[in-house]
């Protein structure tokens, strides 16, 4: 049979030219002009401020071929399809004719990390503006040549047409004008009425290749002479290596090199399974000092509430309010939760003459490059990071860490490409987890049903410890080297984005409000960004609390929300989801136990208080004998402003609901003295076909409004709706996520 080998250039030439053939002939190494906002002019989009040159975003070759560059990367969210839609519309070029280059430190703008539902909001805004500027510039050349007004020039797939039948291609015009200048931020983007692709469910461009088994993923890269690497992991996070018999491992079948650098141990072998077998044996046969027990042996919620934390009042509103007729306080708890990607993290690295090329599914090629340079004690410009797709990550998983592992192992075999693909259990044990959290809420309701007071406190470990954060190095193996580079001190992100406090500012118009964080920067179990950061659990907590206030004041949860909402767009999505679900108003109360109890609940939020508006209604059944909760149906309504690709938004919203159902009902990390132990899908089950509820979702398109981040919008409301449906079904609150059968039974018996 034919054995295809990928056309990858991991030689020295990889530093000089692009990996994609479309880039042949382009030189690399942009000069970044200093960014300046014009006096009194329109605001400069943040990504343009960081990457002001027009030809950093779009290039037109003399033959008319179009290359568009984005720092954003495909994570399975369909972002490159959305970017292609935006570029094609603004340039008036057929989408299939655009060469789209993504996430390459040698070739694309630096857009930091692709995260936080910001790719469309920030990335497409910048790219759209650059493409609009490029189109106007090229049209200007033709208009001048033909002595006509620019408005008289039409463009059809990169060919400019004049009123008297004149024709000029973009390629001809590009030869007469330089795009090597700052983006003109006054360039006018097309109005919604002029857009042909933006706002349509243009089919994902990456799906056919994935359906036919073409080479798409980083795991599929197989350059000639590739070797396989694997890391021998310590038995505990705090463990340090005492001794290891490297010679015995070197003698194993296929082993090419055994690497020890401090407590970092790994192997390079000819075959993947040989590398894994050797690394397993190396880890087991080495002698380790295991270090201190996690959390000093305390329970996690006890630890969160009692260990040293930094308390900060983040938000306060004070106003006169009527006396509270109902006052209430509550505490909610959430366990550690994992990204649990189907494909473990993977990277390919090759050293050549002191330079390093790394293929990575990182969310941030540039920040990764910076942290690699720190760990490897080399200059950032000696490293090129090139994005290649991985399995969905849902936040900061092992993607960045494995890139350092590959670089450390490849350094032992200069010139040879080395691929490292973590084992699934390795990913689950060593990736950063989503933080366990405790929240406490206090509130009051006046006799007329208006909120008088709302106080939201949360105790949490960090939610963002990505590469590129501060002075240290946030790549795990760097901490185990003989000359270690410790992690940067974790800093909680400020509102309105927030990290631990994301979405803790109430969406309801309580007269008096506070949000207070209790931040534990030191994390015995490493934590970082899991889709929504603290947002999921802050929304779940707030929405659970709101339903308890509604019940205590004898009000229907939907009516109570509408009476206390100020934002009409939040009210609109709530009304829509409620209408879709056929909501029956009522007051939640304790009901006599029956074998199978069905209930309906609602959850509402505006992601980060500034992105997509999402309302979810959930219907669940509770088996009161087993304690098992079955989510039956979820209905959602989303307002993401101008939806660049409505089906893409729906796919994200639905997927987020299915994932959040799993988080809310079954996912919890467990650990022993020194390390996470629920590290496979048996011990850490995730959503499947039988337990995933039926989903019905609607996008309310608002073509006249800016695009809002949607990719993480449904997690909080979906979790809240499920928890509130259980509350409605039984009249009992289960205050600890996940809502496991044991906790359900305990609540029913209380």
């Amino acid at each position, binding site marked *: 049979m034919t054995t295809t080998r990928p056309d990858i250039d991991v030689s020295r030439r990889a530093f000089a030219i692009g990996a994609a053939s479309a880039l042949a002939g382009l030189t690399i190494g942009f000069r970044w002009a200093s960014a300046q906002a014009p006096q009194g002019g329109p605001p400069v989009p943040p990504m343009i401020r960081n990457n002001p040159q027009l030809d950093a975003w779009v290039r037109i070759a003399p033959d008319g071929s179009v290359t568009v560059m984005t720092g954003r990367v495909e994570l*399975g969210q369909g972002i490159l399809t959305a970017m292609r839609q935006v570029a094609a519309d603004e340039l008036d070029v057929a989408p299939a004719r655009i060469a789209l280059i993504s996430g390459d430190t040698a070739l694309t703008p630096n857009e930091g990390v692709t995260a936080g539902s910001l790719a469309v909001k920030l990335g497409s805004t910048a790219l759209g503006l650059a493409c609009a500027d490029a189109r106007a510039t090229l049209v200007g050349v033709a208009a001048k040549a033909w002595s006509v007004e620019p408005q008289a020039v039409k463009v059809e797939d990169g060919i400019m047409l004049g009123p008297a039948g004149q024709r000029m291609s973009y390629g001809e015009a590009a030869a007469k004008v330089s795009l090597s200048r700052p983006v003109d931020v006054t360039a006018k983007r097309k109005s919604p009425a002029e857009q042909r692709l933006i706002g349509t469910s243009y089919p994902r461009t990456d799906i056919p290749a994935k359906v036919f088994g073409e080479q798409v993923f980083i795991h599929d890269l197989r350059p000639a002479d590739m070797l396989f690497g694997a890391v021998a992991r310590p038995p505990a996070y705090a463990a340090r290596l005492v001794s290891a018999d490297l010679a015995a491992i070197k003698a194993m079948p296929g082993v090419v090199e055994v690497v020890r650098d401090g407590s970092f141990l790994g192997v390079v072998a000819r*075959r993947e399974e040989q590398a894994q077998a050797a690394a397993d044996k190396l880890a087991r046969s080495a002698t380790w000092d295991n270090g201190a027990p996690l959390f000093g042996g305390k329970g996690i919620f006890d630890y969160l509430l009692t260990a040293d934390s930094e308390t900060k009042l983040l938000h306060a509103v004070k106003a006169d309010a009527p006396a509270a007729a109902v006052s209430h306080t509550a505490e909610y708890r959430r366990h550690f939760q994992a990204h649990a990607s189907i494909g473990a993290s993977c990277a390919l690295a090759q050293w050549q003459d002191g330079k390093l090329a790394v293929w990575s599914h990182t969310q941030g090629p540039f920040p990764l490059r910076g942290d690699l340079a720190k760990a490897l004690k080399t200059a950032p410009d000696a490293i090129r990071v090139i994005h290649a797709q991985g399995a*969905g990550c849902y936040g900061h998983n092992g993607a960045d860490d494995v890139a350092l592992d590959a670089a450390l192992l490849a350094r032992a075999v200069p010139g040879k490409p080395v691929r490292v*693909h973590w084992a699934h259990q390795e990913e689950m044990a060593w990736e950063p987890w989503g933080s366990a959290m405790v929240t406490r809420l206090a509130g009051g309701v006046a006799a007329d049903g208006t909120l008088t007071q709302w106080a939201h406190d949360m105790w949490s470990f960090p939610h963002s410890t990505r590469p590129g954060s501060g002075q240290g190095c946030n790549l795990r193996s760097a901490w185990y080297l003989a000359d270690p580079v410790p992690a940067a001190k974790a800093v909680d992100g400020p509102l309105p984005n927030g990290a631990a406090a994301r979405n803790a500012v109430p969406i309801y118009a309580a007269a008096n409000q506070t949000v207070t964080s209790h931040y534990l920067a030191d994390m015995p179990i490493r934590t970082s960004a899991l889709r929504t950061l603290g947002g999921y659990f802050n929304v779940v907590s707030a929405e659970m609390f709101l339903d308890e206030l509604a019940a205590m004041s004898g009000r229907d949860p939907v009516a109570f929300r509408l009476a206390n909402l100020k934002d009409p767009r939040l009210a609109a999505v709530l009304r829509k989801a409620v209408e879709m679900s056929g909501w029956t108003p009522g007051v939640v109360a304790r009901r006599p136990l029956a074998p199978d109890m069905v209930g309906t609940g609602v959850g509402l939020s505006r992601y980060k208080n500034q992105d997509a508006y999402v309302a979810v209604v959930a219907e669940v059944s509770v088996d009161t004998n087993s304690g098992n909760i079955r989510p039956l149906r979820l209905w959602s309504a989303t307002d993401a402003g101008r939806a660049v690709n409505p089906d893409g938004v729906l796919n994200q919203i639905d997927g987020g609901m299915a994932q959040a159902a799993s988080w809310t009902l079954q996912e919890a990390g467990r650990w022993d003295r020194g390390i996470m132990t629920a590290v496979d899908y048996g011990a850490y089950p995730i959503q499947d*076909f039988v337990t995933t509820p039926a989903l019905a979702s609607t996008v309310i398109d608002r073509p006249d409004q800016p695009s809002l981040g949607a990719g993480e919008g449904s997690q909080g409301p979906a979790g809240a709706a499920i928890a509130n449906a259980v509350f409605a079904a039984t009249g009992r609150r289960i205050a600890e996520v996940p809502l496991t059968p044991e906790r359900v039974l305990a609540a029913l018996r209380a």
Partner: protein
Amino acid sequence: MGMLSVNGRSVSVDVDPDTALIYVLRNDLALNGPKLGCGNGLCGACTVHVDGRAVRSCQTPLKALAAGAKIVTLEGLGSKDKPHPLQAAFIAEQALQCGYCTNGMIMEGAALLADKPNPTEAQIRQHMNTNLCRCGCQQRVVRAIQRAAGKGV
């Protein structure tokens, strides 16, 4: 040195007979379809057909294959020019996000349809239940299988 029949072609491989089929398919034969997922047979990303049955290639050592066993991977199921109905249905339904599990979804779903051309939704969900998708595309996958079965949307 052993002979394997993969996607209708006979190929020789020179590896330890204890080696899991997934490594041979991916690393020796440069096939991209089967994906290494959990490595424990729990997620289904590595699914291939052996003599028409869906099997987990991460749990199938070469020595467990019958002589002359016919292996079909996603690449052999259909192509852009001649797609299997389920491959076409996955495109029509946009039934994935990252696509890492897609190989297993299609291979397992195709095996179901070969066995049971008109499954009910409940039968589809039950059959597919040990194929995991972390992106949460279960409902779209069900729709794609229904579409390929000539049902539903």
